[in-house]
């Protein structure tokens, strides 16, 4: 669907993107992850033929972004970063305008507008002025114009920025649904969002690609030790519990967290290839120690991201 080779963009002397080579398969939902100013928006602007690259090439839907930009633009739907809309138009009026601009045949235009209005949950507001809608609804209008004319590829730049939590959940659900039929690229600096919605992640920092993989693989790659956390009801039993856990095979270290409400939490690190949970539970219960809870810590995308970006810096 997308194939880029050494895609590079300089703004004068400043780097926007440097030697980005990646590919996106049909049907994928790809997350672009990076801190603010990392080059996510720049890359998206190049893929949508708005900004010409300084160097390198990219093919979108099989067409070159420079030489065949018209063909590319026919096949993409784009939601820019700040979701620019004509605030003085009505929702329906605006979408009809987009349908004409996007070359939807006249006899299909009305049906197509109805379809995207329904798809994006805008049935309640088709005749309202866009500028007077809530941000959540405006975002839906932005997505509606992107999916109008049924493009193969959707490029969504920070689709949930500035929304309230309820709206964020709704928009994410909408994107997940769209991801079932289309190829979607979305950028975000909100990490849980990417791990929830995307099946592959590209992490960029300061214009360069630092990782591209599924969220699970990224997690596995960076997991150098397994971590479990367990809570004991009676903090007084700490020394006894510590001794027992330490004696278990594969344990690397134990950290005792400060006491809270008479209970004590231990963070136990062990070799990644061995799951020690079962053993820990059996030994503690046998000794009659009051175990309240136990769970294995997973590296969140947040940790991965921080790790990768800090590794890069150091």
């Amino acid at each position: 669907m997308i194939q880029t080779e050494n895609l590079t963009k300089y703004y004068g002397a400043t780097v926007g993107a440097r030697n980005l080579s990646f590919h996106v398969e049909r049907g994928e939902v790809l997350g672009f992850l990076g801190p603010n100013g990392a080059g996510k928006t720049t890359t998206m602007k190049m893929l949508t033929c708005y900004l010409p690259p300084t160097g390198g090439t990219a093919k979108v839907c099989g067409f070159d972004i420079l030489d065949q930009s018209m063909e590319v633009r026919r096949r993409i739907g784009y939601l820019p970063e700040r979701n620019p809309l004509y605030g003085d138009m009505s929702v329906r009026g605006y979408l009809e305008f987009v349908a004409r601009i996007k070359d939807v045949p006249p006899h299909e235009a009305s049906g197509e507008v109805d379809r995207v209005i329904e798809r994006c949950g805008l049935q309640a507001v088709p005749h309202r002025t866009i500028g007077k809608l809530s941000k959540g609804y405006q975002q839906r209008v932005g997505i509606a114009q992107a999916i109008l004319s049924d493009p193969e590829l959707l490029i969504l730049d920070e689709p949930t920025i500035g929304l309230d939590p309820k709206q964020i959940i709704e928009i994410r659900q909408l994107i997940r649904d769209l991801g079932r039929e289309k190829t979607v690229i979305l950028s975000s600096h909100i990490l849980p969002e990417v791990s929830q919605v995307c099946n592959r992640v590209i992490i960029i920092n300061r214009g360069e690609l630092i990782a591209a993989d599924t969220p699970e693989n990224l997690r596995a790659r960076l997991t150098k030790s397994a971590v479990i956390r367990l809570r004991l009801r009676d903090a007084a039993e700490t020394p006894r519990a510590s001794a027992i856990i330490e004696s278990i095979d594969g344990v690397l270290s134990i950290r005792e967290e400060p006491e809270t409400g008479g209970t004590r939490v231990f963070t136990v690190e062990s070799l990644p290839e061995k799951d020690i949970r079962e053993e820990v539970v059996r030994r503690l219960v046998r000794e009659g120690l009051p175990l309240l809870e136990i769970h294995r810590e997973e590296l969140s995308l947040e940790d991965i991201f921080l790790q990768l970006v800090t590794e890069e810096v150091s």
Partner: protein
Amino acid sequence: MRRLGALYRKEMQYYFQSTTAYVMIGSFLALSGYFFYSIFRYYNFMSLQVSRDPSIGAGLNLIDGVMRPLMSNMSVVLLFALPLLTMRLLAEEKKQGTFELLLTYPLSDIEAVMGKYLAAVTLFVIMLAGTLLYPALLAVYSKPEMGPLLTSYLGLFLMGCTFIAMGIFFSALTSSQIVAGAATFGISLFFLIIGWAAPFVGPVFSKVLSQFSILEHYDSFAKGIIDLQDVTYYLFITVFFLFATLRFLESPHWRS
């Protein structure tokens, strides 16, 4: 063509929904109506003088006495009014970010620019059409010559098209409407008065300056003459600025 039409329709809708059109047409007609009234009263007064002393009446007619001064006053009002009409065309979209979205649609630059240009020209034609009331009033009481009337309207139309092309060019350069409007006003005024220095710069430059002057080329239209040279002049300036606009919009591609 359909995409151009879509943009054209959107711009027209904006003009009429945002009251821009009503305010522009209304104030233009009010001003030109006032000019018509005062010029006509003066013409009346002169006619009375002539009836007493026919020797001063040579060449007094409705075209030279009423329509020509009226049209030249209107051209000055247009100089102020048209930049207001054109300054937002591209600058506003650039500021709001909608221009970026527009350029990622399968819409060519020329369709985008012409859709907007033609919308502004249409509104200008409506403004101009409103002023046909004045010659119509004259025709009720007298018989003004139709030829010079039509050519002077054609001249004013071409002049307006030139101002609008300058306007869309400056609107493409900046995302500030004020800057676009002020620059358009400056350059159109400059083209209007560039001929004033002609008598003082020697024979060669004098010819050059007066050939560049918008007013100079309007003169023959006002007299009832359609000179190919004048038509070419207006079309050339118009096409030049539209072409410059397109080149500027493409500039990210050849500058990088």
